[in-house]
C-alpha cells in the first residue's frame, strides 16, 4: 500500500513529463508548420507581382468624322462591344451613350494609348439620318473635325487559370465599395487578427436557428487565403491551414494590404471560359465603368455579388441582384454609412449594364499570327503573366464583317453548287479572307479558315497554293513597263489569242483558255479583262519570262518562280498573304508596303517594349502600275469580275479573278484606293471543285465583304502626271472616231498612245494559221 502510494507520484510525474514533452513537440511542430505556412504566404504574397495578368491584344482605334454612316460601320454594336452602356436619353459619365433621332451622345472612356493618355469627354455626334454631319465636344462646346474611339480588346492571353483581372490600389476604389464589402463579408474586419471567434459564434447561432447554412464565419483574410493559396475542396485540414495562414498573414501584413489583395483576388463571375476576378474587372464587365466611377448603388450591387456571382448577376438574375443590393443598402443605412437621402437615391437607381449578347469577332487566326510575330521577343509565360498591352492593326468592324461573310457565303455556295462539289468529301470547303490597307500595309482582317475550333491551320498565312490567273497582272505590269519589257506594249496593243506550242522542260506546252475557245486578234486589255490564258502566255514570252520573274520578286512573291511559260498562268505556289501583299503595289502607285499586324507592345505601366515600323519602298514606276490598275478596273466593269457589279458593288474598284487547273483553287483579289482584299476558296487536300471558278466561288464573298466595309468618299486611283487618258476603240485599240462607237478611255504613258484611228486598223476575228514558236524553256 505504502509502495503504491510511493509509486503514484512517480507515475504521475512520468505522465506529466510525457504530457509536457508532447506539448513541447506539438508546440515545436506547430511553430515549424506555421513557419512553413508563413514562408508559403510570403513567397506568394510578397512577390512584386501577385497575380499572373493576361496580356491583352487590342484592335486599331476607330476614327469618326463627318460623312461616316454609323449604320454601315455598325457603331452602336461597337459601343456595346467596348462596354459602353445605353443610358437612354442622358449621358452622365464615362462609358454612357444615348441615341436620339438626330444625334448620338457618347461619354468617351479614358484610354492609355502607347505614349499618349487620352481623357474621355462627352461627345455629341449630330446625324442626318445615319450619317455623321457634325462632331461636338460638349464640355468645351467646340466643333471637332474627328473623334477617336478606343481600340477593342480582341483577345486576352491567359495562363491555365484563365483569370481576367485589372489590378487596382485601395485609393482607386470608391470608399462606398470598400465599406459595403466589409459590412457584408466581414463586419469585424478591423477588430480581429485573421480569425473571428465572434463571427464564428454568430454564424453558428444563425445556422442553428435557420437549420441550415445561411451564414459563414470566414473573415476576409480567410477568404483571401482560401482563394489565393488553397485548393477549393472542403476538408478539415484545409480549414485548419486556412486559419493558421490567416493568423500568419495578419501578423505580417497590414489590414490595408490584405484588403487590397482581397478586392483584386475575389471571384466575381464568368465571362465565357475566363473568370472575372477582382472588383475593377467586375466593374468594367457588369457596369461598363472604371471602378472609381461606381455609384453607391453599384458598389452595393457588386459587394452583394461576392457571395454568389452567378446568382446575382445583372445579366441573368437582375431581380435577385437588386433585392440583394437593397439589403446591403439597408445595412449601410443602419450602420450610418449612408444618409437617408443617399439611401433613397441609391435604392431607386436603375441598374444599367452593357449589352451582352452581341456579335463578337474573335479573330483567332489573326491572334495566332500576331502571337507568332511576338514569339521572337516574348515568351508564352511572359505573355500570360505580365499584363502586356499589344496593339495591332486589326479593324474590328471589318473583322466582324469578314467572319459573318465567310459563314454565310460558304453556306450559300455549298447549297447553290452542291452538285459541283465532290460528294462525301471528308473535309469541308475551306477559305481565306484577308484585307490589307495598301497605304501602309496594315493587315485589317484575317480569317484563315471557316472554323478555328475544327482546324487551326491558317490558310491565309500558311497554305501554299497556286495563284492561277491572279498572277496575270504581274505579267501585264512587266509588259507595260518600258524598262522591264523586251517589247513595247500598251493596253491597245493587239495580240493573238490563238493556240501555240512551245517546248518547256523538254516537253511541248500549249496553253488553253478556260472557255476552250480561241479569240483571234484582241487588244491586250481584252486579254486581261477576260483572263485569256493563250494571249497572256504569249505576252509573257514576248515580254521576257525572266523579266516577269523579276517583277514578281520585287512585288514580294518569294515562291519558287521559274522562267517558264506556265509561270504566266500562275503555275507555282504562294501564300494568300504573300499574294495580297504583292497586289498592294497597284493601289499604292508602285510602292510596296510590307504587311504589318503588330504595332506596339506596352507594359501595364505604359512603357513601350516594342514598336514595329511601317516599311514602304518604291519598287515600280508608277506609270505602268497605273496603266495596269486601269485595265484591272475594266475587269470589274466588263471582264471576269463583272459579277461584283451585278451584286451591287459600286465605286472605284479593280481586281482579278483566279482559277487553277481542274478548279482546285478559286481566287479573287480586288482593291479600292483605300483597301485591298483577297478571298480564296478550295479544299485543303487540293480536291477538284468542278466549274467552281474564282468568279463563281471567291468573287461573291469578296463583294459581300467589300460592300460592307468600303468607306465613303469617292476617290480615284492616283494618276501620274505623265499618264494620259485617250478615247480609243474597244476592239481595235485605235483612236476612237464616229465610226467606232464602242469606245473607252484608255491609259497610256505619255508618248505611247496610239496614232492610228480605229478606221485604219483592220482586225480579223478569223484565225490566221496556227503558230509554233521555236523557243524552248
Amino acid at each position, binding site marked *: 500500500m505504502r509502495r503504491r502510494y510511493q509509486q503514484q507520484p512517480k507515475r504521475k510525474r512520468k505522465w506529466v513529463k510525457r504530457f509536457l514533452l508532447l506539448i513541447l513537440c506539438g508546440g515545436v511542430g506547430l511553430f515549424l508548420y506555421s513557419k512553413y505556412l508563413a514562408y508559403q504566404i510570403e513567397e506568394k504574397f510578397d512577390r512584386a507581382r501577385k497575380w499572373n495578368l493576361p496580356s491583352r491584344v487590342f484592335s486599331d482605334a476607330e476614327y469618326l468624322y463627318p460623312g461616316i454612316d454609323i449604320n454601315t460601320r455598325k457603331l452602336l454594336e461597337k459601343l456595346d462591344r467596348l462596354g459602353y452602356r445605353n443610358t437612354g436619353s442622358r449621358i452622365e459619365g464615362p462609358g454612357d451613350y444615348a441615341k436620339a433621332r438626330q444625334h448620338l451622345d457618347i461619354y468617351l472612356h479614358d484610354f492609355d494609348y502607347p505614349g499618349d493618355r487620352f481623357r474621355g469627354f462627352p461627345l455629341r455626334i449630330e446625324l442626318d439620318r445615319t450619317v455623321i454631319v457634325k462632331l461636338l465636344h460638349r464640355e468645351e462646346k467646340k466643333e471637332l473635325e474627328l473623334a477617336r474611339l478606343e481600340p477593342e480588346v480582341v483577345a486576352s492571353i491567359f495562363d491555365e487559370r484563365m483569370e481576367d483581372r485589372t489590378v487596382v490600389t485601395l485609393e482607386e476604389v470608391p470608399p462606398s465599395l470598400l465599406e459595403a464589402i466589409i459590412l457584408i463579408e466581414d463586419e469585424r474586419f478591423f477588430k480581429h487578427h485573421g480569425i473571428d471567434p465572434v463571427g464564428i459564434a454568430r454564424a453558428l447561432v444563425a445556422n442553428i436557428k435557420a437549420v441550415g447554412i445561411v451564414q459563414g464565419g470566414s473573415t476576409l483574410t480567410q477568404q483571401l487565403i482560401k482563394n489565393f493559396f488553397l485548393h477549393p475542396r472542403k476538408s478539415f485540414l484545409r480549414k485548419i491551414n486556412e486559419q493558421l495562414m490567416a493568423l500568419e498573414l495578419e501578423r505580417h501584413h497590414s489590414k490595408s494590404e490584405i484588403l487590397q489583395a482581397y478586392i483584386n483576388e475575389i471571384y466575381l463571375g464568368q465571362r465565357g471560359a475566363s473568370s472575372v476576378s477582382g472588383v475593377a474587372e467586375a466593374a468594367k464587365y457588369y457596369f461598363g465603368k472604371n471602378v472609381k466611377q461606381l455609384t453607391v448603388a453599384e458598389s452595393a450591387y457588386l459587394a452583394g455579388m461576392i457571395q454568389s456571382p452567378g446568382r446575382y448577376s445583372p445579366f441573368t438574375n437582375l431581380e435577385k441582384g437588386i433585392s440583394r443590393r437593397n439589403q446591403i443598402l439597408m445595412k449601410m443605412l443602419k450602420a450610418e454609412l449612408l444618409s437617408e437621402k443617399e439611401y433613397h437615391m441609391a435604392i431607386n437607381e436603375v441598374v444599367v449594364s452593357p449589352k451582352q449578347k452581341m456579335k463578337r469577332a474573335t479573330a483567332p487566326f489573326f491572334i495566332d499570327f500576331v502571337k507568332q510575330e511576338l514569339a521572337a521577343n516574348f515568351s508564352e509565360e511572359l505573355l500570360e503573366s505580365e499584363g502586356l498591352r499589344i496593339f495591332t492593326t486589326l479593324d474590328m468592324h471589318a473583322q466582324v464583317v469578314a467572319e459573318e461573310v465567310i459563314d454565310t457565303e460558304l453556306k450559300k455556295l455549298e447549297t447553290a453548287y452542291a452538285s459541283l462539289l465532290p460528294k462525301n468529301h471528308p473535309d469541308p470547303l475551306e477559305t481565306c479572307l484577308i484585307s490589307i490597307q495598301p*497605304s501602309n500595309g*496594315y493587315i485589317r482582317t484575317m480569317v484563315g479558315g471557316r472554323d478555328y475550333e475544327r482546324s487551326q491551320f491558317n490558310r491565309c498565312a500558311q497554305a501554299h497554293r497556286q495563284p492561277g490567273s491572279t498572277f496575270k497582272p504581274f505579267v501585264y505590269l512587266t509588259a507595260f513597263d518600258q524598262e522591264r519589257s523586251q517589247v513595247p506594249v500598251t493596253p491597245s496593243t493587239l495580240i493573238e489569242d490563238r493556240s501555240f506550242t512551245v517546248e518547256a522542260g523538254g516537253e511541248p506546252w500549249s496553253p488553253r483558255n478556260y472557255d476552250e475557245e480561241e479569240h483571234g486578234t484582241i487588244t491586250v486589255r481584252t486579254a486581261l479583262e477576260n483572263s485569256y490564258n493563250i494571249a497572256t502566255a504569249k505576252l509573257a514570252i514576248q515580254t521576257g519570262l525572266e523579266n516577269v520573274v523579276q517583277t514578281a520578286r520585287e512585288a514580294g512573291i518569294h515562291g519558287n518562280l521559274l522562267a517558264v511559260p506556265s509561270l504566266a498562268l500562275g503555275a507555282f505556289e504562294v501564300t494568300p498573304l504573300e499574294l495580297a501583299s504583292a497586289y498592294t503595289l497597284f493601289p499604292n502607285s508602285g510602292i510596296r508596303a510590307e504587311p504589318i499586324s503588330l504595332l506596339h507592345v506596352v507594359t501595364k505601366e505604359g512603357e513601350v517594349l516594342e*514598336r514595329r515600323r*511601317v*516599311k514602304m519602298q518604291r519598287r515600280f514606276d508608277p506609270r505602268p502600275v497605273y496603266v495596269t490598275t486601269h485595265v484591272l478596273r475594266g475587269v470589274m466593269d466588263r471582264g471576269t469580275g463583272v459579277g461584283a457589279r451585278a451584286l451591287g458593288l459600286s465605286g472605284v474598284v479593280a481586281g482579278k479573278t483566279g482559277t487553277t487547273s481542274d478548279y482546285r483553287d478559286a481566287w479573287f483579289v480586288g482593291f479600292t484606293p483605300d483597301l485591298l482584299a483577297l478571298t480564296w476558296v478550295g479544299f485543303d487536300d487540293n480536291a477538284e471543285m468542278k466549274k467552281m471558278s474564282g468568279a463563281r466561288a471567291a468573287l461573291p464573298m469578296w463583294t459581300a465583304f467589300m460592300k460592307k466595309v468600303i468607306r465613303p468618299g469617292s*476617290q480615284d486611283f492616283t494618276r501620274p502626271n505623265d499618264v494620259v487618258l485617250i478615247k480609243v476603240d474597244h476592239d481595235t485599240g485605235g483612236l476612237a472616231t464616229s465610226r467606232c462607237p464602242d469606245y473607252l478611255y484608255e491609259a497610256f504613258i505619255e508618248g505611247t498612245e496610239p496614232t492610228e484611228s480605229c478606221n485604219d486598223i483592220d482586225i480579223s476575228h478569223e484565225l490566221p494559221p496556227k503558230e509554233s514558236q521555236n523557243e524552248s524553256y
Partner: protein
Amino acid sequence: MKKPPEKREVNIPKRKASAQLVEKGIAAMNAENLEKAERYFHEAINVDTTNGIAYFYLAKVLFENDRPDEALGFLDKAQSLVEEDDDYWHEQIELLQNKITGKTISDESGADEHYY
C-alpha cells in the same frame, strides 16, 4: 526664299479630319516628341490614304528620327499624291528628297507653318 501658299481650303470631311491629325503631328514634332508625331501622321494616313501632305510629314519625321531609308518610301508616295500644280509642295518634297539622299540644299522654307 519662296513664299509658301495660303492654306488650301479643303472641303472633304475625311481630308479635314486627316488634316487635324497632321496639325497635331506637327505640334508634337515642334515639341520634339517625334514618336508621338509619327503616330499622328500614321493616323492621318489611316483616315485619308490620299493625303499627300501627311505622307510628307511622316517622311520628314522619320528623317529627323534618323530613319532616312524608311522616309524615302513615304516621300515617294507624297510626291505621287500632291496635286500637279502645287509647286510649293513639290518643291518641299524635292528639298527633303535632296536632304535625305545627301544632295545640296538650296532652299528651306517653313513647311511646318503652312500646309494646305
